């Protein structure tokens, strides 16, 4: 009998700090068990730039600019199961702390009125994605199947969650692995 088909998994960090990805690597030797069962599609680990049809998509980070919206929609279109991983994907997290400020004033404060900035103007290269006026949790932009809280979720929590998903169970991160901080 042939081995069961490996599940395709894509991961991405939108408006995040890659901390959740670091935590994913914190599953240590479970990485071997994981790679027996999955193959990676688009991910910072493969450096692929587009996402093909996948079984599971893990999204770190909220939505802070136009590129985030594009990538998130691509993930939703390609992934059968989409997971919001970490505080920023779930509630906007740290980047969303700018939400009560005006984005124009934020940009000018950083690029125009900060001592030592020699350009003195807000970068407008067409390759730079436009910031949104507010940072949004990903469930405000696409439908999300599961949520894995934590800043970041611990390696143990991620492993429990992914193990459930791979085994076909409804993933459940319960006390004491469930953390918002």
């Amino acid at each position, binding site marked *: 009998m042939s081995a069961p088909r490996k599940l395709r998994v894509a991961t991405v960090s939108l408006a995040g700090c890659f901390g959740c990805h670091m935590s994913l690597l914190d599953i240590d030797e479970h990485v071997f068990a994981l790679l027996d069962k999955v193959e990676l599609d688009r991910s910072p680990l493969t450096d692929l730039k587009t996402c093909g049809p996948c079984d599971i998509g893990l999204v770190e980070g909220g939505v802070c600019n136009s590129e985030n919206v594009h990538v998130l929609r691509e993930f939703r279109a390609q992934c059968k199961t989409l997971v919001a991983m970490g505080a920023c994907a*779930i*509630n906007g*997290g740290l980047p969303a702390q700018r939400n009560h400020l005006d984005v124009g004033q934020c940009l000018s404060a950083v690029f125009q009125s900060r001592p030592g900035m020699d350009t003195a103007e807000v970068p407008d290269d067409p390759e730079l994605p436009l910031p949104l006026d507010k940072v949004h949790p990903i469930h405000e932009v696409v439908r999300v199947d599961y*949520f894995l809280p934590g*800043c970041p979720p611990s390696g143990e929590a991620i492993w429990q969650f992914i193990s459930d998903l791979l085994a076909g169970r409804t993933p459940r*991160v319960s*006390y004491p692995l469930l953390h918002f*901080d």
Partner: protein
Amino acid sequence: MSQPTFLLDGQSVPFDDGQMILEAARAAGRYIPHLCWHPDFPPHGSCKLCVVKVAGRHVSACATPARAGAEVESDTPEINTERRTLLQMLFVEGNHFCPACEKSGDCQLQAMAYDLEMTTPRFRHFFPDRPVDASHPEVLLDFNRCIYCELCVRASREQDGKAVFALTGRGINKKLAVNAESGRLADTDFSADDKAAHICPVGVILKKRVGFAVPIGERTYDRAPLHEVALPKSEDSA
């Protein structure tokens, strides 16, 4: 005559005449979730986390007298789903950014979300603009996390005899206000020794310079879940 009892999730709970459902359950070592209720104060009935179903009707367990023979549903999927929805509304209404909060791990709102396995805020976030008040030398006020339980208002008025806090506005415009001409805590007679300084279930009223004396990971609800911590100590050892 033996003590009257009611049924809480099918189990018998004794009560004294006039005792509320939540109090009687608590005395019997049974936890019903609550945020605005506190043993030192009369029931407030505003957070609605203590909602239970009695004879098909939803009532606040903190403010509904126990009745002999009543069948009370509390820890059921239906009621817990409603509680989770209430929590989600509380979370999106304020700015509850746990990773940056000194109260994380000691916060009842967060601990209840863990208890009820709330993994998503589900609704659209309001991201309200609520500036902090750091004017007082000993205490910081971070209004972003206020859930309007009025415990500080009640503690200051009824136990400290000061009336430092008040809720103003109604509905979505409701906010916690400081009772001073300037609106600043420094211009009141508030003290870090007040009852009101220690009663906030979330991270609004914070003593300065001790925020991380106990590290994250070793705090109240890191050690035990809310439904154990919230019960009276004598019941724990019984």
